[in-house]
């Protein structure tokens, strides 16, 4: 694939990530429904994860990168090839951790929303207002 096409695709991913983040922040802060806030929050988390994966990406000269798993016999020349061609595995590990944490937080928020619905009969934050703020 030529460099122009690749960098074009790269910028599309990058721009859509920024737009996604902005939309998700709008959803969390401005939408009144708690369920929509939680959906926006998961979109924000996913955009952050995409960004992390993108930072780990690299383009070795001319070829596609290989996954960060060494599948051949680890001879010195194989290892050298692997180091110069594999994508960075660390952001993938970070994303894995962030996904697990995001799952826990989302579950907790969903539980709290159910509890709000039981107490107030609505999930609209404008009507959930017993506190003075």
């Amino acid at each position, binding site marked *: 694939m030529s460099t122009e096409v690749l960098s074009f695709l790269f910028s599309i991913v990058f721009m859509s990530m920024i737009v996604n983040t902005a939309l998700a922040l709008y959803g969390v802060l401005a939408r009144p429904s708690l369920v929509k*806030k939680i959906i926006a*929050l998961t979109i924000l988390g996913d955009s952050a994860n995409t960004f992390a994966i993108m930072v780990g990406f690299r383009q070795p000269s001319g070829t596609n990168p290989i996954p960060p798993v060494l599948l051949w016999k680890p001879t010195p020349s194989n290892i050298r090839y692997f180091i110069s061609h594999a994508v960075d595995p660390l952001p993938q590990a970070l994303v894995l951790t962030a996904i697990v944490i995001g799952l826990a937080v989302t579950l907790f928020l969903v539980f709290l929303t159910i509890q709000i619905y039981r107490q107030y009969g609505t999930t609209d934050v404008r009507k959930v207002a017993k506190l003075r703020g």
Partner: protein
Amino acid sequence: MAFVPPSPIYGLSAILLIVAAFAVPIFTLFVKNKRFYDAYAIAFGVFALAISISIARKVFASNAPIIYPFGGWPPPLGIVYEVDMFGAVIGLLISSVMFLIIVYSTWYTERLSGYEWYYTLLLGLEAGMLGVVYTGDIFNLFVMLEVVAISAYGLVAFYRNRPQAVEAAIKYAIVGATATTIYFIATIFIYGSYNTLHMAGIAMRNYGYFHLTFPGMLNYLPGVFYGNMLISACIALALSLWVFTFKAAVFPNHFWLPDAHPEAPAPVSAALSGLVVKVGAYASARFMYTMFGLGSTELLNHGIAHGVPPPRTMFMIALGVMGALSAVIGAIMMGIQRDVKRLLAYSTVNHIGFIYMAMAVGVQGAPRAAIALALAAMVFHMINHSVGKSLLFMSTGAMIKHVGSRDLDKLVGIGKVMPVAGATTVIGALNLLGVPPFAGFLSKYLLYQAFLAVGMPYLAVLVVVASALSLLGYAKLIYMVVSSKPAPVAPGSIKESPVVCGVLIVLAIATVALFAAYPFVLKHVFVVTAQHLIDPRIYISKYYEVMAWMWSSLYGG
């Protein structure tokens, strides 16, 4: 020289407490006796306290940070814990106050259903806080912040059938979850251009230690491989400082605190107000001093344009303005509260403002000795506020539990029926106000001196003004106790628990003891801590030393 692996206690406390917390639900299958869970939580509280004391003693004895690489992975790989003096002092503060809170909780949960889940969350909270202060890795900081945050949301919503509690929790949790995700984005920015997640590694890049070569195969590590370091550092700092000021409840981000802290059970309010907000302040100081500190080349010596202050100075000005505003606004809002716990919550906003003001004086061009004084005052004030605020939340918590109301007017005259809680409330209020026989006076005085020494007299005046404004709020508390009006409940109907009295008296003695030990602790603890915080060279060189040792021992060096 062969590498001597450090003792595993440095990495133990956070992991041990998390395991202890998650073991509680398993125990509930077999044991139904409340005494067992009390003893269990106290045992782990003592254990964490013992570990923190031993870490603090070792760090102060060796006069250098201690590095603990997890799983024996040599430093640029894997997670490291790096405990320096600042971390050791705050860790000791966290585990000692948490121990008292756990002891108090054994009384508070007496007639509470679901105390086993309460202890799960409380131990999880302590684990997260200790992890934040001992870690040397910004992604591990994110994980530990999430542990603190989830435990805190759960504890705020502990009375899950009380509408206000659930509402406060969801308000806190939605914005808190957004904030931690944004911190994750900040760590990715840093990783993208610094190629490391270790605080010492990032500081190494910022201070331009590129000439240090890595032993063995790691010569490819230094160097930038993604984007512009200055821009991504600025973006990452802007994002992460917003998150930390949210966690610390500094002025525009304080909106969740006056709801969340009062709705939690009393010991939890003490932990949230006394300790959890300090975690945010700790992380801000760690970022602004150790990692992106004074003299770091990228941020300080390259101003954007002529006449524009360098980016780090601008961040500091923003933090200082936010701190000053929250000191004043917290003080004013204290005066108009009718709810005891809301009053104390706004007092937290006020004191966190002082802490951020002290943090913000460390700009380039200010005299180093004066900055060290300000940071010493910051650490001292963090300790005083933790002790004083947890004392106040626990003493008023006992009153609220007996009387059944949080209204200041309904609690008037309580001192006659609850003498110990009343006396310690007065001591706590005077300590936070800054009245001489208590340590709060000394830390405010030190702040005042530091602002004058650094050449910012308006901040010094602001400390006095904000303290004077907060007098109204503390006077309400003191009046509530010493008023001659008849007590809200019949005399003799309340018997103060010896556990509660013990905890409150220990905390009250601590305020006086810190006052008495002031010359000693200032010289040997706070000033040393501040000097190490300002100058991260030891932090970096210790890290480099361990890294070199471990790689050379790997290669049979």
